[in-house]
């Protein structure tokens, strides 16, 4: 990593304190430069950074720091470099250390000593970290000169997960580029376990579920490395495991093998409850069969999942008066509802790397999704999940906008109209030809078919409400095709 200028560091520091994409104008104002300079600085920063771009950009939206890359580039922190961290970086560094070793107690001097900061800054950091972890039901303790974090193991792992997995493009491969040799070994081991699960179930675990599962196992291994066993076999997990063994024996066999491998890897006995925890993660994911024509899901969709999906679709469609194919949307969305509800029930979060883009492009749809959680008394669907659901609606809308409901008219409705129907369907698949009709029956057709968006006729017609009409020859010449193409573009732009 090349040494940075003051301006470059100012830019990075500004982005460090931001979560979303920031427009170049805002960055320029913050560092007293021009947007052109911002562009030039970012280009230089990215060129000089090893292990991937430091700052990602989205056209029309802005720039964002890829925090995980930033951290990994600064992983081999020397005493000297520790002192150069911003306050945000410092707090993340400290929190990570406390979480991974929780509930171990650390001397405050040992944690903060490398940062060369005053007592008041230490107190301020402690106060801020305490606030940060409060929402996860974790407690930061300070007694005498010691600092430590306590809380439910599940919550601890959740927060580590959030710190570990950034919002940028993430993949399992990213973890394998770690500079730390021990971590790299762990990461390779865990990848092999995920491959084992996939091969045992003859399925693949797609993004982002693979990243989620990876991070769960990675954190499990890290916690057992540092602290040892922190979960016990409770009655609830035993019951849950028995049920899972009955419902999904093949999956439990595969997961049992994985936990066994981890036990051998760590030279320590891993409790059976970890099998159940892993099962919950897998149950909150989607599996895809190796045969692309066959999708393999865990379990079948139950009545609640079907009801939630129906209500979701009806509520959102009614709120926005969406003209969508509800059945097609239901078919695709209901399959995702089971893992989603499992995730909500088990407090498992999945990062949505497209969240900001989704919020920007479909803000109203995004807001509507939360209604379902209120109606069904579900835990609040978080932004990441709302984002995933919004994409389904956006795709359904786009699908409908792609097709223009068309009627073809000729003298009889049986001859030229049919011939044109074939030619037009081949050339313009975005036209949904709902009817071919005789010119004498056109008024009745318009009355019956409310959603006509285009009429193509071989004969001149009187004005037909506000429906666009194209007159073309039976030959459907190139000129006819050209005019139709232009008309289609015009119609689409209006919708």
């Amino acid at each position, binding site marked *: 990593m090349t040494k940075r200028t003051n301006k470059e560091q100012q830019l990075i520091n500004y982005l460090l304190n931001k979560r979303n994409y920031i427009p170049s104008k805002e960055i320029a104002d913050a560092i007293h430069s021009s947007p052109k300079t911002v562009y030039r600085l970012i280009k230089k920063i990215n060129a000089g950074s090893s292990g991937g771009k430091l700052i990602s950009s989205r056209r029309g939206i802005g720039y964002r720091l890829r925090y995980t890359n930033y951290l990994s580039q600064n992983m081999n922190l020397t005493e000297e470099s520790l002192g150069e961290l911003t306050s945000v970086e410092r707090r993340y560094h400290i929190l990570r250390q406390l979480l991974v070793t929780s509930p171990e107690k650390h001397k405050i001097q040992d944690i903060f000593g490398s940062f060369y900061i005053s007592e008041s800054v230490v107190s301020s950091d402690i106060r801020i970290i305490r606030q940060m972890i409060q929402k996860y039901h974790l407690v930061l303790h300070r007694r005498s000169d010691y600092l430590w974090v306590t809380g439910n193991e599940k919550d601890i792992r959740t927060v580590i997960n959030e710190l570990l997995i950034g919002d940028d493009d993430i993949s399992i491969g990213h973890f394998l580029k770690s500079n730390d040799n021990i971590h790299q070994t762990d990461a390779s081991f865990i990848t092999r376990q995920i491959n084992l699960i996939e091969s045992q179930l003859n399925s693949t675990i797609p993004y982002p579920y693979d990243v989620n599962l990876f991070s769960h196992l990675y954190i499990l291994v890290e916690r057992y490395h540092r602290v040892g066993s922190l979960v016990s076999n409770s009655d609830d997990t035993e019951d849950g495991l028995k049920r899972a063994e009955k419902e999904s024996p093949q999956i439990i066999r595969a997961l049992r093998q994985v936990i066994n491998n981890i036990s051998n890897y760590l030279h320590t006995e891993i409790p059976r409850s970890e099998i159940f925890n892993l099962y919950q993660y897998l149950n909150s994911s989607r599996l895809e069969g190796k045969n692309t024509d066959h999708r393999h899901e865990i379990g079948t969709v139950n009545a609640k999942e079907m009801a939630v999906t129906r209500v979701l679709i009806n509520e959102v469609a009614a709120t926005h008066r969406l003209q969508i194919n509800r059945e097609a949307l239901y078919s695709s969305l209901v399959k995702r509802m089971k893992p989603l509800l499992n995730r909500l029930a088990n407090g498992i979060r999945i990062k949505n790397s497209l969240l900001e883009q989704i919020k920007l492009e479909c803000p109203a749809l995004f807001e509507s999704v939360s209604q379902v959680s209120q109606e069904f008394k579900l835990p609040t669907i978080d932004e990441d999940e709302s984002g995933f659901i919004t994409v389904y609606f956006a795709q359904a809308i786009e699908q409908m906008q792609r097709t223009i409901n068309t009627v073809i008219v000729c003298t009889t409705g049986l*001859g*030229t109209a*049919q011939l044109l129907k074939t030619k037009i369907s081949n050339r313009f698949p975005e036209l949904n030809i709902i009817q071919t009709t005789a010119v004498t029956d056109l008024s009745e057709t318009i009355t019956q078919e409310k959603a006509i968006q285009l009429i193509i006729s071989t004969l*001149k017609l009187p004005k037909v409400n506000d429906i666009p009409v194209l007159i073309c020859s*039976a030959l459907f010449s190139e000129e006819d095709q050209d005019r139709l193409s232009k008309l289609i573009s015009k119609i689409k732009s209006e919708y």
Partner: protein
Amino acid sequence: MKIQVDWERYKTNEQQELLYQFGKSQQLSGIITDTGRFIHEIVQREQLASTIVASNLAIPHVRSSNVLHFRIEVVKLTTPLKDWEGYQGIDRLIFTLVPLKMSICDQQECKQFFLNLGRQEVLNLFSHGSQKDLKDYLREKR
């Protein structure tokens, strides 16, 4: 079968004469009631918009009370027409005669015929295919 092939039966290259001969033949067969009305309605339709679908093929059609029974006749001329509504080179025509009321079967047959005609290979067959090829095709589609 409601779809017939007339191969070089009509020895004229004049539009009006062709329509007269064809109309007469249909009247004698009981397909239409009046040849004069038939000619008028076919020409009127052609003037509204051309039914030429290939360089040498037109699909003139009429739907009226003058038509008693559904019929499709594929006509191949010995020599191309001198003039078909201002266009030269037409030597094949597919006449479609549609009564005001049509059975569901006839409607389906008619629709399917023209749906297939929209495919390029079928259009090529009707524009340039031999008599045998045409008859084989129609037999196959029956």
